């Protein structure tokens, strides 16, 4: 059992928790993920590490309430326990040789982008951050990004806060204006990462994307997290849990990944609705 040390509501659908897990806390690097189960009968879900405090032995997770499992997790309070918490898994984000980086985060993906931005800042790289949200209500981590970024641009789809538009708009302006990033790292919805990659392409800037496919074990056993890379005219199968979650954006078959992400859409929708109803009745 793993204790919830702190819980903080970041916006109506996004919650941050610090979980007591000393072994994982001592090892986790930005870009890696953990697998958790809320209770004895629960499903295993992967969540990317949003930070660690090795001295307190805690791992920070930030999650959006999208399905039954995240709904149940969100009902847990500070001081309560979750059943299982295993990690870190996956390969940490590569930082070597990158002196000028652009971090592009979308929605809850910003929670994963933040520790990556912080790491580059700590290493002395120039950090340009672009973070986007649907509306002001869903904005998270603005202060944290401001602290570790040399330049921060906030975007909202509806213009209810900061600048209106997609994250690709300021990115294109910067690239057009002659910005020479060593690397663009983008984390968020698949469709956003796809368009960030397409935006960067004419300028020849390398793009790293953080994939978040359906997973069960997360340790290289089930193969559910497979995705396809197009490399030198060949189609190559990779497993996000052991080969990723970071991949070269120019190689990823985003359309296939989006299609695979929809596999259990109907199941998830029903399960979430049922869980909400059960919890309401319980009240």
């Amino acid at each position, binding site marked *: 059992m793993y204790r919830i040390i702190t819980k903080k509501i970041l916006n109506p659908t996004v919650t941050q928790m610090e979980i007591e897990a000393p*072994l*994982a806390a001592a*090892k986790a690097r930005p870009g890696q993920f953990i697998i958790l*189960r809320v209770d004895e*009968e*629960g*499903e*295993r879900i992967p969540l990317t590490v949003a930070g660690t405090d090795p001295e307190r032995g805690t791992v920070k997770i930030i999650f959006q309430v999208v399905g*039954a*499992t995240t709904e149940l997790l969100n009902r847990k309070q500070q001081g309560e326990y979750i*059943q*299982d*918490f*295993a*990690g*870190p*898994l996956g390969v940490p984000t590569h930082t070597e040789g990158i002196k000028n980086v652009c971090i592009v985060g979308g929605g809850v993906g910003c929670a994963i982008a933040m520790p990556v931005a912080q790491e580059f800042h700590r290493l002395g790289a120039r950090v340009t951050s672009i973070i986007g949200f649907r509306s002001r209500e869903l904005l998270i981590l603005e202060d944290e990004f401001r602290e570790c970024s040399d330049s921060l641009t906030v975007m909202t789809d509806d213009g209810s806060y900061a600048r209106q538009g997609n994250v690709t708009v300021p990115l294109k302006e910067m690239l057009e204006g002659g910005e020479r990033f060593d690397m663009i790292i983008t984390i968020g919805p698949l469709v956003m990462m796809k368009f960030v990659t397409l935006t960067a392409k004419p300028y020849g800037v390398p793009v790293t994307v953080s994939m978040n496919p359906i997973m*069960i*074990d997360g*340790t*290289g*056993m*089930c*193969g*559910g997290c*497979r*995705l*396809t890379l197009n490399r030198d005219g060949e189609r190559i*199968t990779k*497993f996000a849990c*052991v080969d990723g979650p970071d991949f070269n954006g120019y190689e990823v*078959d985003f359309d*296939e990944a989006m*299609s*695979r992400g*929809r*596999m*259990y*859409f*109907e*199941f*998830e929708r029903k*399960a979430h609705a049922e869980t909400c109803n059960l919890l309401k009745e319980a009240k």
Partner: protein
Amino acid sequence: MSKPNMRADKNPMPAQDPKVRAHNFNEVATGYSEEAALDEANRCLNCKNMPCVSGCPVNVRIPSFIEKIKEGDFEGAYAVITETSSLPAVCGRVCPQETQCEQRCVRGIKGEPVGIGRLERYVADRHNENSKESPAAPEWNGHRVAVVGSGPSGLTCAGDLAKKGYKVTVFEALHTAGGVLVYGIPEFRLPKAIVAKEVDTLKALGVDIETNVIIGKTLTVDELFGAGYEAVFIGSGAGLPNFMNIPGESCNGVYSANEFLTRSNLMKAYLDDPKTPIMKGGKVAVVGGGNVAMDAARTALRLGAEKVYIVYRRSMEELPARREEVEHAMEEGIDFRLLCNPVEILGYKNENDPRDPKNGFVTGITCIKMELGEPDASGRRRPVPVKGSEFTLDVDTVVMAIGTSPNPLIKSTTEGLEVNKRGGIIVNEDGLTTRKGVYAGGDAVTGAATVISAMGAGKTAASAIDRALSGN
């Protein structure tokens, strides 16, 4: 001594009716009665040279335990088996006896061999039902050993060492101990309560089991030595599933057998209202001919499939699955399409509506007929495609059960640990790897194989570790 029972046939294994069991996850084979066990035991001739024992990877003293059954001393029989086997209730169910102990049985020359596996199961089940007391942990001999993975090789290695007084910690990456016995082999063939019971027996012997620890990630092998463990046994099992690299394998509804079985077994997606989703019902094609393929096909059937195919590129003769599983699968109505090989998986695509929720889901599998040519390196006749013989099966789900490649996590974080070109950890006859104090066994070494061969490897390593640490 009474005269042996010279009937040519084994006592049949009682089983649930195929029509009934095809719709439930309860155990298929229900086990011998005491009467059948005594009758079967009396078929054993108690041969002096004991050919059966040499066919057993852990050398269970088979005629001795059968003698105990004849005497009605079932606990005595259990004691004989557990001298060499840590998991009798498991082995009695999942060992391929027909290619091991029973293949060498003298009674098999004229008629059927003695039902050794069935007797082993009877003895173990009877013990588990009646015995309330757990074994006591022996006095600690001052040595610590770490075991990586709680599958058959790890549990065996841990059990053997614990009995000798070693303090053993087993590190398991998943949330439940048992490895393939829990995530891979279905409830209807190996009830999970039996695995849990075997794990509890080890705990009573003083073995610590740490779940949610991924060696190679959470802790490295070097850190285990740093923490005071004097030897490490790696039994991390098979790894990433193989795919065929044919078009359509990334369609929704295509699973590896590992994923399909893990969802159903470990994550209990077979329950009516599961927390973890799985495709249920419809038509299913399982590609492959091993035990894993049989397990996946029969699981699909029990999940409500209206039609389940096994697609295998060789013939019945080469089918590597345990004979009893193939027979059970056939009785249950699994449709075997032998000498067939998939060439493409077909997916739904609505050109007019990219948001059609059916887009990307499997609609069929195109196969080509095969014929057997000359024997290949494995000694089996190589299947060759028959030109122009393609045909399509309409299916909603495809399960690829064509093997796995070893997991890279430990290899990539352990300096000096060498692997062969297939990724299997290189070991000597004692199970010792190229790293001092690090031993390995099971699928992590051999690639996908049987439970009992993994147990044999765990046993060999345990004995080598004992010699190395005790100085004997």
